[in-house]
Structures are given as structure tokens and as C-alpha cells.
């Protein structure tokens, strides 16, 4: 989230797309209800009329997988009706930048495409640079090669008729949404976009989010109270676990992992030169990287050995993300796996295949509160033949969240502390202690080993106590970082250095523990410090900022665009930025100083990117059909996102629209959580949502002879499942490109363990991911349905 939960009450319009917060983030509606009471409008765009739709002012149906068409139409509407915040666009985005000659777009493809490799040569999309290396701009926005004019041209194709025929959204609904949301372009108004996995779990997921960013920048909604782009995260600490680098391509704090395939990464110097931009906040990257190395390798990290840079693993040229990981497991390339509270046999795409893959491991360690479907994948009840599975399985009982202490970071980036309420149940232990003791045991096994493979691990500093219990305070302080010269904790990442004299295990969190005894995640002063930002409650990274890019809520001179949406402003007397939030800007950099208007400070040139030449499938979002789609693409002859990786063969079968004519999507219900391993093991939640169901429209039910509560079979190219039919008025068939297209939806919470059981929806979903993130396309695939008897 750029903003935070409490801030939602300040919005004039919330566009909720690819999300169903009333069901999946219910407490968000405490603040959205307040926004409504203050006169704000709520818009729900969803294939299905949800409980969010029920409490919204406007509902627009949309066929799964057509968000870019829907949003492209809104971009066109905003530009053609001049419903943009022009001064904001000219100054805070790259709208006036001139794009160099290499860029072109024809019939669904941008310039530089390599058909055989399914990749683009992104250098073709470069922005024009002057002799000084600075971008060439036209602040009048009239030059046809400005980003602004190219944007206008790109989306001129997204006319109402085409959009409506692709999305299945009636034209009057499109107009109602466009008009209502674009009203937030007015100074004094702010609109927010709320999204979740309905946006990201597509082959074009990243570009769906990019489309939000374009709209919010055109309307001048980034940085404002009640504005922003707000990803509602599905797990209590998926924010933190991402911040802490539990993804193959990131170290902590979003520092890119050095790769064997990038020649410059062979040395620390080369890596830093390659990855560090000349301007923007990331120009400080060397300080973050060296401080991380000092945290991990301590005295073994010296200037002479590149601060231990070579100890870090460098992945090879392949992709190591979830789908690829399971493909490697399926192909018997892996020996062992650790699972930290995760249940891919229910939650993974094409889950039947992921279950099979587990049987190809030699050993599996599952750390969980429960015996999950994944931990028990070898059992008869899982449909397996135990005698044929040679995987050794270690199931370790973990403590529940309130049986231990530690912090978690919510969607708002607020790092809140959880105190221990009770001793762990039975012999369960905190994950912290399990990891710690495992590390100590491995250290012992390697002790005295002088082999080449032992040295990187032996060099790893592990000083959190010698006993089986980990000293969490030492971990917290290591994350914050120290000044090695004084031995004191660091006040924040502004104090980090690249010379090896500072440490920080995760630079974006530096400052949460600035002095002994002051772990700010424990802050519980709930006084409203102004604007409902609660600056003394917990700690928000970075540096306790509650609204990111808040400099953009002020004009070029540093005055708020409006008093209604003021948050920080320049105080010429005190010579600093003041207001209700911690400035997301250099606090003493005057608006008149060089860089003083570079409101989007993390980016090179200090502007937001309407045009993003870093994306894998092009600088502007373009509509492509999902991997499995019932209709051809209306916008070009390119059907599927040209930059996605297609996994061929048995691991990922593709269904045709002839055999599987119905669109399917998965989602969550408010009573269950993720794979259901937590909630299906709790009686009351099992009681109030006890059955696997599939929601289908009355029209489709009639066509298939299905009555409400009938048992039905849903099949896809990957498998089939049985579930109850929930026949509902809340799904309506779509009219898409002249034909009637049905969509069904189902929760993905069920499996064969727990108080309540049901078939696993993910047995149907495909192994195909977004072109940038490899997030699987759970939200639009093809199926068929029939009665079970």
C-alpha cells in the first residue's frame, strides 16, 4: 500500500478491482464505510456481484482477464475529456519525456520482439537523452514523441464499443465508472485504487497494476491522503516476508540478487556499478548492500574480500520461482525442501502435479501448526500409494502467533509487535528457535571443515545466543543495524555507509530500533497525531512514513494542492517540510532547490513512470487474452502476452475452448484463509463455511440441468473436482464479442484434512505465470461443468 487502512476514510472514491475486501479484508470496510459517510463513493468491478459490490455505490461486471481493456478505456476517457490533473502530470510524471526513435507499436507487439525467445530487446524503448545524459522533455506535451502523446495514441484504440465487447461490461456501466472515478482529477479530491490477487494472478498481472499507476498519476492521486494504489495483502506478514527477501531474486530490502548470468555481477564493484542508478534514492544502493554484507558476514566481511560478496550464492541463468521450482522438483532435480507454514498441495497452481512432484524429493521438512495436506501428501487419504513414495518427511510442530513474540508488517507497512500470551501448545516451538537451532547444528557439522563449500557457510555470522532458544532482541537489532565505530544502534538508513563501518540486515527497516530499549514496533500510543496517521503507533517503514510519495500532495512551490488533501508542505520559516506525516522526501530540501520538485524520489529523475521501459512485455499495458480464453483478442492478432514463458508438456496441459468453454476463477471467502490449513482446523470457522462449492449463474445452471445444492463436477485440462453447485443471481453470463460466455467461481480453501474437507480447486488451475513476476494465472482459466450424477 502507498497509503494505509485508516487513510481509506479520506477517499472521495474507491475503485475496488480484482479484490473483494468486504469478504477478504473485512476491517477495510470499517474505513470505507466511514468514507461513504463522508460522501465518498465506492466502485466494485468484479466478474461476480460480491459482498463488496453489495455495499458499493456502483457495480460493474467484468470478464476475468480483461482489466487492461477496462482500464485502457478509462485512460482514453480521462485524456479525451481532459479529466487529468495537468500540472501534476507535467511535473511529477514522465509525460513530457521524449521517447527515442526505437520505440514502436504494431498489432499487439512493441518494437524489439524476438519471437523465438519470447522476449523483447528493451533498449529499443529507451527515452531520448540530451548530450548531458539528462532526459529530453517537452513540457507543452505537444511533441508527438512525448510519453503523453504516445500514451494517448496507444489508448485511442480502447474505444467504448471495443472495450465493452471484450470485457462484457455494459457501456453504460463503463461510463458510470469512468466518469465517477475521473472526477477525482479535480484538485481537492482524491481517489484510491484497492486491489488484491484478482489483479495480480494473471499472465498480465503486473501490467494490470501498471494500468492503475497510469490512471492514478494522470488523475494526480498518488501521494495524497485518500489516494494511492493500495495492494491489500492476503497474509499477516506477506509484506514482511517479501521485505526480508524470501523470493529467489531479492535479498532483503529489495536488493537484487547477484546473478551468475550477468557478467558485471562477478565482483561487488561490478554489481554495484551495474545496479546503482546515477540519481534517485537508489543511488545510495552501495551503502545498503555493504551494510547487509557486514550484518551477514561480520568480521569475515572486509574491504579486501569485497565485504564477503563472494560468499553470497549467485543463481544461474534460469528462473527459480514457484512454478519453475516445482517443475524442477517434478523432474527430480531437487533433493530436499523446507516448508515454513505453506501448503502447496492446496495452494499451488495445478496442485495435483505439485503433489506428485513432492514424491520426487528425498526429504521434506514441514514446519506447521497442523498436519497439512502437503505434509501428508504420501498418505492413502491423499490418493497416494505410500509404499511407492520414498520421501522422508519431518513434520515439526510450530508455535501459534501468540505463543511467541515478534513483529509482523501489515499491508500498510506498519510493523506491529505481538507479545507472548501463553506457552506453546505441547512440544511446539517458535520457528525462530527452530531455524536458530538448525543453524547451530549445521555450524557444528561444518566446524573445522576446510573445504571450499564449507567456507561460505562458516563465514556466516550467527550470534543470537548459543542455546536452543534464539535471542530475538539480538535479531531485531541486527535488522536495524549498528554503527560499528561507536557500537551504537543506527538512527536510520540515512546513517548507512558503504565503507564497512555500518551494518543493517534490512535497510528499509533501519530506524525501527534506534536506541537500546526502543523497539518502535512495540509503540502503543494511539493518539491521532493528525490526519489519522497515528505516528506513535508501531513503526512504518521507511522511516515511519505513512503515505508514500507524500511530497506529490504539494505543488511545485511546496504548498498543498488543496487544504482538503494536505499532508506535508514546505515551511519557509523553519526551512523544512512539515505536516501530518514524515516527509517521503529530503526533509530540508526546498522546493526551489535542485531536485526540490522531484516528488517521486525513489525513481530516477524523480518522476512517476507513465511509460515504463523496464517491463518485460512493453512500456504500456496492452490487452492480451489469458492463457486459456474463450474468445480471440479484439485488439490485435497476438493472443497471449508475448513475453510469458510457456511450460510445454505433461506438467502443464492446456485446455481448448471447444472442450472447456466456460471461464473459471478462484477466490477466498471471509471465513477461511488461504489453503484453509488454519481455518479448517478451527471448529467455529469450519462450522460457518463447511462446504466446497462452485458459484454458477441461473442461466448456466438451466443450460446444464443443474439445480441449487446439486453435486457437480468441474473439469479442466488439468483435472476435475466435485463440489456443490451454488446457483446465484450474482453471476450473469457475459456478452463477449457477440457471443454469450459463462463464468464460474470457486473458493480455493479446501483439501482433505481438517474438520471440514472438500476438493481442491487448484487441481484445475494452470502452470503459467505473469511475464514479470511469474505469479500463476489462477484467476482466468477454462473449464466445463456437469451434474455429478
Amino acid at each position: 500500500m502507498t497509503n494505509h487502512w485508516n487513510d481509506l476514510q479520506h477517499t472521495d472514491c474507491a475503485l475496488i478491482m480484482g479484490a473483494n475486501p468486504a469478504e477478504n479484508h473485512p476491517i477495510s470496510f470499517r474505513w470505507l464505510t466511514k468514507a461513504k459517510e463522508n460522501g465518498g463513493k465506492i466502485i466494485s468491478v468484479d466478474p461476480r456481484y460480491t459482498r463488496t459490490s453489495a455495499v458499493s455505490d456502483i457495480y460493474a461486471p467484468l470478464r476475468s482477464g480483461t482489466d487492461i481493456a477496462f482500464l485502457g478505456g478509462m485512460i482514453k476517457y480521462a485524456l479525451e475529456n481532459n479529466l487529468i490533473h495537468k500540472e501534476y502530470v507535467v511535473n511529477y510524471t514522465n509525460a513530457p519525456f521524449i521517447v527515442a526513435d526505437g520505440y514502436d507499436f504494431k498489432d499487439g507487439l512493441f518494437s524489439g520482439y524476438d519471437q523465438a525467445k519470447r522476449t523483447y530487446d528493451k533498449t529499443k524503448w529507451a527515452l531520448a537523452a540530451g548530450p548531458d545524459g539528462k532526459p529530453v522533455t517537452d513540457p507543452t506535451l505537444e511533441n508527438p514523441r512525448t510519453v503523453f502523446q504516445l500514451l494517448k495514441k496507444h489508448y485511442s484504440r480502447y474505444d467504448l464499443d471495443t472495450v465493452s465487447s471484450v470485457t462484457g461490461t455494459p457501456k453504460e456501466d463503463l461510463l458510470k465508472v469512468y466518469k465517477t472515478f475521473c472526477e477525482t482529477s479535480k484538485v481537492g479530491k482524491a481517489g484510491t485504487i484497492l486491489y488484491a490477487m484478482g489483479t495480480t494472478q494473471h499472465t498480465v498481472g503486473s501490467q494490470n497494476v501498471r494500468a492503475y499507476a497510469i490512471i492514478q498519476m494522470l488523475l494526480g492521486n498518488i501521494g495524497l491522503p485518500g489516494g494511492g494504489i493500495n495492494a491489500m495483502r492476503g497474509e499477516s506478514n506477506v509484506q514482511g516476508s517479501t521485505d526480508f527477501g524470501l523470493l529467489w531474486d531479492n535479498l532483503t530490502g529489495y536488493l537484487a540478487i547477484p546473478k551468475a548470468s550477468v557478467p558485471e555481477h562477478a565482483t561487488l564493484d561490478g554489481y554495484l556499478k551495474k545496479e546503482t542508478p546515477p540519481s534517485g534514492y537508489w543511488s545510495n544502493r552501495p551503502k545498503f548492500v555493504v551494510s547487509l554484507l557486514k550484518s551477514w558476514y561480520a568480521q569475515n566481511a572486509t574491504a579486501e574480500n569485497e565485504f564477503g560478496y563472494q560468499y553470497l550464492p549467485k543463481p544461474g541463468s534460469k528462473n527459480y520461482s514457484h512454478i519453475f521450482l516445482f517443475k524442477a522438483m517434478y523432474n527430480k532435480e531437487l533433493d530436499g525442501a523446507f516448508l515454513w507454514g505453506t501448503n502447496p498441495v492446496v495452494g499451488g497452481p495445478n496442485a495435483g502435479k505439485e503433489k506428485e512432484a513432492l514424491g520426487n524429493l528425498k526429504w521434506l521438512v514441514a514446519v506447521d501448526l497442523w498436519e497439512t495436506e502437503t505434509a501428508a501428501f504420501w498418505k492413502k487419504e491423499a490418493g497416494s500409494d505410500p509404499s511407492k513414495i520414498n520421501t522422508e518427511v519431518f513434520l515439526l510442530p510450530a508455535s501459534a502467533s501468540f505463543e511467541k513474540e515478534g513483529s509482523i508488517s501489515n499491508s500498510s507497512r506498519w510493523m506491529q509487535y505481538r507479545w507472548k500470551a501463553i506457552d506453546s501448545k505441547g512440544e511446539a516451538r517458535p520457528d525462530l528457535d527452530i531455524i536458530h537451532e538448525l543453524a547451530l547444528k549445521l555450524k557444528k557439522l561444518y566446524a573445522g571443515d576446510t573445504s571450499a563449500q564449507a567456507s561460505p557457510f562458516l563465514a556466516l555470522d550467527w550470534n543470537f545466543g548459543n542455546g536452543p532458544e534464539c535471542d530475538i532482541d539480538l535479531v531485531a537489532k541486527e535488522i536495524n543495524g549498528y554503527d560499528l565505530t561507536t557500537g551504537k544502534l543506527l538512527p536510520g538508513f540515512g546513517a548507512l555507509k558503504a565503507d564497512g563501518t555500518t551494518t543493517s540486515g534490512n535497510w528499509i527497516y533501519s530506524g525501527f530500533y534506534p536506541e537500546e530499549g526502543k523497539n518502535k514496533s512495540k509503540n502503543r500510543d494511539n493518539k491521532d497525531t493528525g490526519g489519522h496517521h497515528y505516528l506513535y503507533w508501531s513503526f512504518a517503514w521507511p522511516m515511519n512514513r505513512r503515505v508514500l510519495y507524500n511530497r506529490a500532495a504539494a505543488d511545485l512551490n511546496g504548498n498543498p494542492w488543496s487544504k482538503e488533501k494536505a499532508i506535508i508542505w514546505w515551511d519557509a520559516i523553519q526551512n523544512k517540510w512539515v505536516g501530518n506525516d514524515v516527509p517521503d522526501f529530503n526533509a530540508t530540501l526546498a522546493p526551489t532547490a535542485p531536485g526540490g520538485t522531484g516528488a517521486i524520489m525513489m525513481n530516477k529523475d524523480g518522476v512517476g513512470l507513465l511509460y515504463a521501459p523496464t517491463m518485460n512485455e512493453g512500456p504500456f499495458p496492452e490487452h492480451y487474452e489469458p492463457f486459456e480464453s474463450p474468445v480471440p483478442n479484439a485488439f490485435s492478432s497476438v493472443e497471449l502476452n508475448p513475453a510469458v514463458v510457456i511450460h510445454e508438456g505433461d506438467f502443464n496441459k492446456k485446455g481448448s475452448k471447444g472442450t472447456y468453454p466456460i471461464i473459471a476463477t478462484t477466490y477466498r471467502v471471509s471465513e477461511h484463509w488461504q489453503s484453509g490449513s488454519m481455518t479448517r482446523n478451527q471448529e467455529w470457522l469450519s462450522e460457518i463455511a463447511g462446504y466446497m462449492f462452485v458459484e454458477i449463474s441461473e442461466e448456466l445452471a438451466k443450460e446444464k440441468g443443474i439445480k441449487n445444492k446439486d453435486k457437480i463436477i468441474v473439469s479442466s485440462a488439468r483435472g476435475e473436482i466435485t463440489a456443490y453447485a451454488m446457483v446465484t443471481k450474482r453471476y450473469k453470463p457475459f456478452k463477449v464479442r457477440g457471443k454469450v460466455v459463462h463464468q464460474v467461481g470457486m473458493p480455493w480453501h479446501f483439501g482433505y484434512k481438517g474438520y471440514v474437507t472438500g476438493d481442491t480447486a487448484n487441481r484445475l488451475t494452470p502452470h503459467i505465470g505473469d511475464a514479470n513476476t511469474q505469479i500463476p494465472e489462477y484467476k482466468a482459466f477454462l473449464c466445463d461443468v456437469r451434474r455429478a450424477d
Partner: protein
Amino acid sequence: MAKEYVKFVDVTKCDGCKACMVACKNWNDLPVEETAFQGSAQSHPKTTADTWNVLQYIEHENAGGGLDYLFRHSSCFHCTDAACEKVCPENAISYTDFGSVVIDQDKCVGCGYCVQNCPFEVISLKEYKDKNGKEYRKAHKCTMCTDRLEEGLQPACVTTCHTGAMEFGDKEAMIRKAEKRVQEIKGRYPNAQVYNPQGVGGTHTVYVLAEKPSVYGLPENPKVPTSAVAWKDYAQPIGKMMLGATTMALVGAFVTNKLFNKEGKEQDGGGSNE
């Protein structure tokens, strides 16, 4: 006298999260029960002895042809003139100063008259076995968390409700609030109304409904059954005089069977809860 309180439920603010259902079970330590798939997000067809409030989900095509997805927290209404209190032969049901209607479990003999006579069908019997294996029954329903009220805390369901769809407070203030709210939402819900039926003397769970009561399966104009009035106000005192309290249940059975129809329903108008 303490103040009279009302639980005000504004269904138009509810987003159907079911926290009220679980909060009730959590506070009152109620066990789970198995229910069949209902064909909607609804978990139980109605309240039971172990489930004192149920979230209703209704797909309603409104007069304008549009779809309304309606939710209602349904539980005991805590009537001012409570039929259950009137028909109870053991005087196990009583009013509290807060306005809640409670069942004294020590006195309840499980005869089921309250179940039969509740115009809202919110009371249920549960079967138990004593240590000798002998079966007995008790009637259960929402207590309005009277134990919490006595400690100065609001009912558990109200405490957890995040949208403000439920509030607990002074009776008059809550009713005024409900009336004002109806005016605010008439544009979106032309049939919106306050539901505080006078046929039962008004209730201590007062609703703002988005639609007519029958859409929610509620009686349009529930009344205390005249036979219940007759029983409570005439037959029972006479019987008590004649026979003493302990045998009243037997007389009750006789009188009830004679006076009441089979289902024990005398309410007029409206739909049913089926």
C-alpha cells in the same frame, strides 16, 4: 431501575462477515453443530440451541429489476411483551432491567412452549443426558449477553461488528437513530423501514431493514398469540392457585394442546422463516 437498552441493527451497513456469529459462540462457549449445505453463503437455516445468531444472505430482485444482496444478523428480538415469557409454565423466562429476555436454565424443564410460541422462531430445544443416561431438554436462545451487560460491557456481537451495523445503547436514542437512517437510505432502498413491531410491545433488537420484513422471512406484524396471553394472564394464575407450581407443566401441556394450533402459531400476515 437501570436504563432500557436496545441493540440496533442497521442491515444496510452489514457486509455479511459473520463475526457476530463467532463472537457469540466464543463468548458463550457454544459448541459447533453440523449443518447441510444451504445453497448460499448462509451456514444455518435459522438459529438453534447452539447457534444463537445466524447471518442471513438473501438475493433479492428489487422493484427496479436490480439485484440487492441483503444480509441480516438474526437472533432473539427480546420483545417487550414476550410470548415466550408468557407461555413458560415454570416462569423460567424473565425480563431483565436492560430489556433483555433471559431463560433461567435451572428452571427450564424443556417443555418447548416458548419454542412453539415465539413469533420469530429464535428459541430451540437441546437434548442432554444426565449421568444416569436419562434424557432431558433445555430451551436456549440469545441472552443479549446479559452477563456482559451486568459488567458494563456490550453484547459480544455488537463489540465485534466492524462496519457499525450493530450498536447498543439507550432505547430512545437507538430508535431515533434508526428512524433517521431510514430517511437517509430511502433513495437506494425505497422499502427501507424500521422494524420494531408493536404487536409484541416493541423489541429490544431494533432493525433498519432494506426491504419489507417478508423479504427477510419476518412477520410483517407479529403479535403475542392471544392464547399465550390467555395462558399467562388467566390460566396460569388459576392453575397455580389450584395445583401449585410444580405440576404446572402438566397442566400447561393440556392447556397448550387445547388452546394452540399444532404449530403453536397464531401470528398473522408476513412470510415464514422457512
